[in-house]
């Protein structure tokens, strides 16, 4: 358990940032890059890597928020629905001719609000976060569909696409990663998230404001989902009500592949970055090998199973054998 909770804030060099659990995933990444480079012409090229970096950005940003939530022992199934809600409802302002900063602020505000609703419900209602966010996911998505009536928002001015140009999305991703690596490793709030996930009751008795911190993780998750939505609008140039479908699966996959325990209490933002990179490389490689996109769900599910199985073997709870 020492790998999960560091003692104090003292500097430990690289060791602190790269926990043991991230090393294997780094090897998997190198391994599949080699395999795909041999199999596919043009896989190992700047152009392809630029493409992949653009592709992983949106789900990657969502996964960062998901990591925080999962570290505290929760889960947020509503990330894709929040993304869609934020850009579609905020996008109504585009047709009303609102200035760009206002539209962006509204989108972000909606993300924060929906995240807060999640956090509020999860902490007030003694029911697993899975059930709550299953409910809110459908409420948010339903409201989006009712308000938009399934209609796309097109004809968006090109200034909205600035954030989606070239390597800019990936830059945003890297900045967010840096901020959240800092938060999780260097702030009292971040360190306490691990304590909450490891043993919530002890954390509470040690004076950690458990509920407040949990609410903050959901708010952050909502914020990052809305931010990812803004980048998605920038990349695609239109807004569709179905945006963000299945993002919760992709994000959970990236998080658990990155070594974050689904039981809470351990994990890292860097691991999640590697997890989303791994997913992105696999999906890109399979697309280039002309594998039917129907199989994406299969691969995502399979990778989730492998990742949690590895995690479970690592955690081997000693209480008793259930089987």
């Amino acid at each position, binding site marked *: 358990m020492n790998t999960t909770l560091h003692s104090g804030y003292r500097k430990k060099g690289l060791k602190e940032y790269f926990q043991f659990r991230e090393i294997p995933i780094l090897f998997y990444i190198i391994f599949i890059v080699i395999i795909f480079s041999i199999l596919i012409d043009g896989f190992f090229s700047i152009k392809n890597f630029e493409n992949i970096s653009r592709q992983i950005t949106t789900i990657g940003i969502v996964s960062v928020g998901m990591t925080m939530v999962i570290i505290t022992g929760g889960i947020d199934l509503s990330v894709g629905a929040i993304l869609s809600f934020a850009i579609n409802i905020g996008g109504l302002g585009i047709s009303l001719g609102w200035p760009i900063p206002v539209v962006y602020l509204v989108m972000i505000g909606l993300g924060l609000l929906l995240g807060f609703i999640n956090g509020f419900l999860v902490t007030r*209602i003694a029911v697993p976060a899975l059930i709550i966010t299953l*409910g809110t996911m459908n*409420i948010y998505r339903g409201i989006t*569909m009712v308000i938009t009536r399934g209609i796309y928002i097109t004809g968006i001015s090109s200034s909205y696409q600035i954030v989606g140009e070239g390597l800019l999305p990936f830059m945003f991703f890297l900045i967010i990663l840096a901020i959240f690596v800092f938060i999780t490793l260097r702030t009292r709030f971040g360190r306490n998230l691990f304590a909450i996930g490891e043993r919530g009751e002890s954390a509470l008795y040690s004076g950690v404001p458990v509920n407040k911190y949990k609410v903050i993780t959901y708010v952050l998750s909502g914020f990052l989902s809305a931010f990812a939505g803004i980048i998605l609008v920038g990349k695609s140039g239109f807004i569709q009500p179905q945006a963000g479908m299945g993002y919760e699966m992709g994000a959970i996959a990236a998080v658990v592949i990155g070594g974050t325990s689904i039981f809470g209490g351990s994990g890292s933002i860097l691991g999640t970055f590697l997890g989303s990179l791994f997913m992105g490389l696999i999906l890109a490689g399979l697309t280039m090998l002309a594998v*039917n996109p129907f199989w*994406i769900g299969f691969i995502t599910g399979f990778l*989730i*199973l492998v990742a*949690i199985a590895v995690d479970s*073997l690592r955690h081997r709870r000693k209480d008793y054998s259930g089987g």
Partner: protein
Amino acid sequence: MNISNKAKTFLVLIGVNVTIVILLTILSPTFITYGNISAVMSRMSELGMLAIAETIVFISGGFDLSIGAIMALSGAVCGMLNAIGLPFGLVLFISLLVGLGVGAFNAFLIVNLRLQPFIVTLATMSIIRSIVYAMLKGSVLTGLPPGFLDLGYFYIFKIPFLFIVLIVTGIIISVLLKNTIIGRKIFFVGGNEKTAYLSGIHVGRVKYLVYCLSGLISAMAGIMFVIRIRAVIPDAGLNAPLEVVTAVLIGGTTIYGGKGSVFGSLLGILAMYLLLNGFSLLSLNPFWEVIILGLILIVVVGQKSISESLRRLFPSRKTERQVQVKPETV
């Protein structure tokens, strides 16, 4: 105390159902016609089957998100094998077996690898749905034997055949849960897994049974769905996790395990389908359905936790909490 609580849940549910019926009768002239009522009965049958499956899993303290995907898979297998030209009895048998197999696979991951049920079934849901899409390539399969499909138009005493299948399954599972040793073991495992294990119950075997049953019943639901809509569609049961989990929780089954009843879940599904029927009769936007389901889900689980925290606040009701330990199951 426990029994009166349960009776209260049932009474509330029956009251809700009656209220919806009265409201809809007033609001829509077509509601209380035989055609409409029997349509609601057929329509709720496959979701009702899934609710039975989920109830068993919930009672055992587990979670199964893959029921909707298993439903789609068994339908797809049924359509594909029929297209190949296998004898239809064998086709049905294999379709059911596939459901059972997926259930066993879920159980293997949950029991032998000791993974969390909800994340396992979230993953298998994604895997199975993906397989269904790849099998059907997004298309709709037809050409099933007409004699088989006509079961959807088959009535016994003016009650749709599919609904009778649902009720019979409900009764069988109810008896299994309440009146057999294995059923009581399922309750026990859900109530306190560790105690059950220490009392000499094969927790793993019980869980295998639970998930296999869930898979099998979901596969039956898939075949009933094919009968009802007379075709195989890849999106079968797409919303099932939300609808079923909501109905089961409304019906008084808890996600913590050890408590619940098939009867309650079926009343929950009935209330839901009456409500949905009302939406379509009053021609509201169908997406209101998911919004209202989501709200009901949160209100129902929220209201339970509120009343539980109230109970904790008033020590005079302490006896109620002690009864929940379920000494009668031992």
